[in-house]
């Protein structure tokens, strides 16, 4: 396998324009001779499917949910970045580019990130034209707010439901094309494999989640926009159906998987309340503007928080990071919360929580002011936790939120399998080792609306129009048989432990050892434990019901099986990267103050893994894409 990033030459600002000038185009009357499969209907897949169809390509769109509108993107809250500079506060494409590269701790590709910043403005134009009701000023112009990791106000938002509104925009654009017949729409379908013929992606195998039937679909190109793999941790802020299956099965067919160990943990989520917990809910980061984070100084102090006097409270972020205090970046805040809880200072029934206290803010600004700022969040907290945050501190804890790793793609978003593309959270492209807030929505829509529609044409133009191997081709038959036997195998184990039980146990290993902080010893033992548990899974899992029927637990079983394999690769990747970078904190590599210590000499690369086999152990070969920084200077972060 050879990694060719296909980054165009020339000055940074001109690369994309130059590329657009150089790439091949498909003539309008030829477009209808091509068919493109788009798996996933989140921001990336929804935007891509609609845009392809508008161009005249024939599209097939697939998603797991009963409607494209329910993709996980719907849950994004805070906002979407763009370099419009409406507030006139000095923003620019360069600044958005620079913040994103720096936020990613210099582990992303300059050319991709610059392009992202360039097209960011068009995304806002597009969304507004679709009728996305962004927040506005009294004068009728669009409003902006500020978000972590930036000194300018560049975030566009629709109250706390920005993802919902952007996704509905993309969904509606998609449904318009369903109406014209250019998109064939397949909700409640799960992709189980990609079909590769003569080295090119030529189709997919899916399972109809209602009838249980397996189907074959042939096309000229396949786009995976299937989201992130945060659910490998079992508990995360992701929706329950989020999974790695599509990406992982493509990986096993030859697509390199990049930087799997880069996982973002969000510091302010509602803590786990018991074993039955099925997912975690994010509380906006903005709360840290006014809330003070603390734990009792004394271990096992079980007094009511309001009864603990000031001098017995440990405001650990304020003490350790006097300059930034409670506003340190996500990774630093998460790591410190884990540290104090590991030291036995955590609060609540599980000891895995810290306080976020608004007492002083309410005293200073009055309850009305705090209510105006955070009223809906306080209400949401009270509904879930059953406690009133106006009267006592919230309890919060970090939770897995976003995965920067994903399928390796070149500048055109093509994976290492020609004809197979990856977009949105499913690829590894733009966020390096850490993603800034409000940048995932931007990237998904950029990939879908403004990058793929051009770059896929470059590939299709070189393919013979209308060429078909037929779904009787042996590659289709083999892929379908393999998918079928995996399903049969799962149903036939008929063991004693439930799927959720296995998944929860796997999640705990991954969280403890490949989570917020990692070390060589822990990673090595994680690999052993994952292998053992995987072995047991295949011998003792209990999958109910039938294959030819709606069967949610069967779906989950297949996804958990893939998480078991991915988890081992995450550990391997984390072990290989003997440095700390962004969200990847290796305890052996820290500054004296306990900050992430990069090793640019040796680790300034993208780790792209090639699947070699699975035989009790996962065999993977590492390929390195060296990251060249021509335009920015690498610096060490400091928040002291």
């Amino acid at each position, binding site marked *: 396998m050879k990694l060719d990033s296909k980054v165009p030459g020339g000055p940074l600002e001109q690369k994309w324009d130059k590329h657009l000038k150089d790439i091949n185009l498909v003539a309008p009357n030829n477009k209808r001779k091509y068919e493109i499969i788009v798996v996933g209907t989140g921001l990336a897949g929804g935007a891509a499917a609609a845009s392809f169809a508008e161009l005249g390509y024939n599209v097939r769109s697939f998603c797991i949910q009963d409607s494209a509108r329910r993709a996980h993107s719907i849950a994004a809250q805070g906002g979407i970045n763009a370099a419009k500079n409406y507030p006139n506060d000095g923003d620019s494409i360069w600044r958005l580019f620079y913040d994103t590269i720096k936020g990613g701790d210099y582990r992303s590709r300059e050319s991709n990130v610059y392009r992202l910043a360039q097209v960011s403005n068009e995304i806002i134009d597009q969304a507004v034209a679709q009728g996305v*009701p962004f927040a506005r*000023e009294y004068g009728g112009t669009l409003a902006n707010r500020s978000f972590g990791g930036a000194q300018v106000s560049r975030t566009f938002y629709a109250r706390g439901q920005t993802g919902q509104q952007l996704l509905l925009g993309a969904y509606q654009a998609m449904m318009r094309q369903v109406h014209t017949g250019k998109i064939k729409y397949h909700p409640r379908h799960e992709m189980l494999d990609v079909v590769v013929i003569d080295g090119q992606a030529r189709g997919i195998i899916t399972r109809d989640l209602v009838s249980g039937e397996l189907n074959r679909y042939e096309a000229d190109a396949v786009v995976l926009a299937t989201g992130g793999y945060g659910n490998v941790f079992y508990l995360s802020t992701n929706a329950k159906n989020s999974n790695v299956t599509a990406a992982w099965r493509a990986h096993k067919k030859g697509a390199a998987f990049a930087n799997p160990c880069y996982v973002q943990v969000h510091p302010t989520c509602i803590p786990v309340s018991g074993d039955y917990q099925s997912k975690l809910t994010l509380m906006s980061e903005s709360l840290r503007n006014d809330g003070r984070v603390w734990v009792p100084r004394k271990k096992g102090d079980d007094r009511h928080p309001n009864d603990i006097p000031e001098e017995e409270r440990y405001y650990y972020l304020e003490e350790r990071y006097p300059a930034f205090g409670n506003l340190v970046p996500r990774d630093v805040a998460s790591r410190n919360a884990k540290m104090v809880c590991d030291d036995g200072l955590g609060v609540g029934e599980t000891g895995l929580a810290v306080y976020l206290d608004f007492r002083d803010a309410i005293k200073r600004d009055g309850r009305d002011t705090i209510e105006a700022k955070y009223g809906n969040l306080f209400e949401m907290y009270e509904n879930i936790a059953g406690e009133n945050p106006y009267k006592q501190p919230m309890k919060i804890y970090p939770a897995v939120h976003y995965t920067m790793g994903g399928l390796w793609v070149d500048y055109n978003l093509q994976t290492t399998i020609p004809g197979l593309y990856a977009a949105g959270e499913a690829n590894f492209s733009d966020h390096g080792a850490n993603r800034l807030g409000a940048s995932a929505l931007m990237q998904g829509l950029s990939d879908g609306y403004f990058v793929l529609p051009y770059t896929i044409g470059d590939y299709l133009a070189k393919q013979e129009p209308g060429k078909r191997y037929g779904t009787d081709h042996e590659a289709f038959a083999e892929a379908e048989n393999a998918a079928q036997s995996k399903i049969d195998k799962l149903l036939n184990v008929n063991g004693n432990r439930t799927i959720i039980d296995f998944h929860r146990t796997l999640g705990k290993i991954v969280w403890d050892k490949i989570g917020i902080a990692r070390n060589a010893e822990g990673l090595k033992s994680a690999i052993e434990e994952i292998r053992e548990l995987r072995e047991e899974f295949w011998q003792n899992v209990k999958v109910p019901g039938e294959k030819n029927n709606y069967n949610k637990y069967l779906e989950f079983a297949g996804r958990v099986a893939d998480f078991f394999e991915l988890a081992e690769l995450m550990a391997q990747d984390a072990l290989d990267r003997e440095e700390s970078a962004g969200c990847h904190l290796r305890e052996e590599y820290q500054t004296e103050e306990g900050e992430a210590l990069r090793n640019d000499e040796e680790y300034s690369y993208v780790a792209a893994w090639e699947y070699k086999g699975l035989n009790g152990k996962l065999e993977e070969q590492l390929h390195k894409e060296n990251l060249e920084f021509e335009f920015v200077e690498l610096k060490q972060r400091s928040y002291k």
Partner: protein
Amino acid sequence: MSKEMTIHLKYWKQNGPNDAGHFEEYTLDNVNEHMSFLEMLDVLNEELMLADKEPVEFDYDCREGICGSCNLVINGQAHGPKARVAACQLHMRNYKDGDHITIEPPRAAAFPVIKDLVVDRSAFDRIIEAGGYVSVKTGSAGEANAILVEKEKADAAFDYATCIGCGACVAACPNASASLFTGAKIAHLNKLPQGEVERKNRVVAMVDQMKEEGFGDCSNFAECEAVCPVGISISAIAEMRRDYMKAALRGD
């Protein structure tokens, strides 16, 4: 410590649209007050599976009230007893030890049962497909700030745009009408200059599609508004009907 309760469940089982369906009963002994309603069902299914019984199927994804997947009718109420939340946001602390809970799918001709509590809501997609969008192609949009939009209008549009497409309004309506869902999309797009352009064609196409799908008419019961988890106002329905009458009278 958190409280644990005993809950007596009665839930709907139906193997596909052609099966008659029936209720089954089960008593759960250790229901923690902090569990969400869906987590309680997870626990039910774990117990059923370990006893080699078939789990009950129900729809969900986000479990935080935004995706619109969950659609349970709980003791006769769509999304359960608590106002302004979806079933996935309901917590067991709203119940007490010994309570009886009946769980059913939304019942409407236009929402055939797939299995147990899971129904087919593709009719909603087809209503949007008929005209619930602005006809603008990627790349053809002008500068976002070129058209000013009054803040009040943008905010009102947002309020209607928050519909999560769950179908509770249909489940609660004695006529099984989809007017609140359809009206919400029409009112959202009407409020914005970008959507105003196609106002007439949109309302006719969407309302006609709604009828074709077999949803009933609206007779102003307002049950829909009461169960809507995001509080969509029935003013949307009035607006939809007014527009439809006008467009129909003009014959276009």
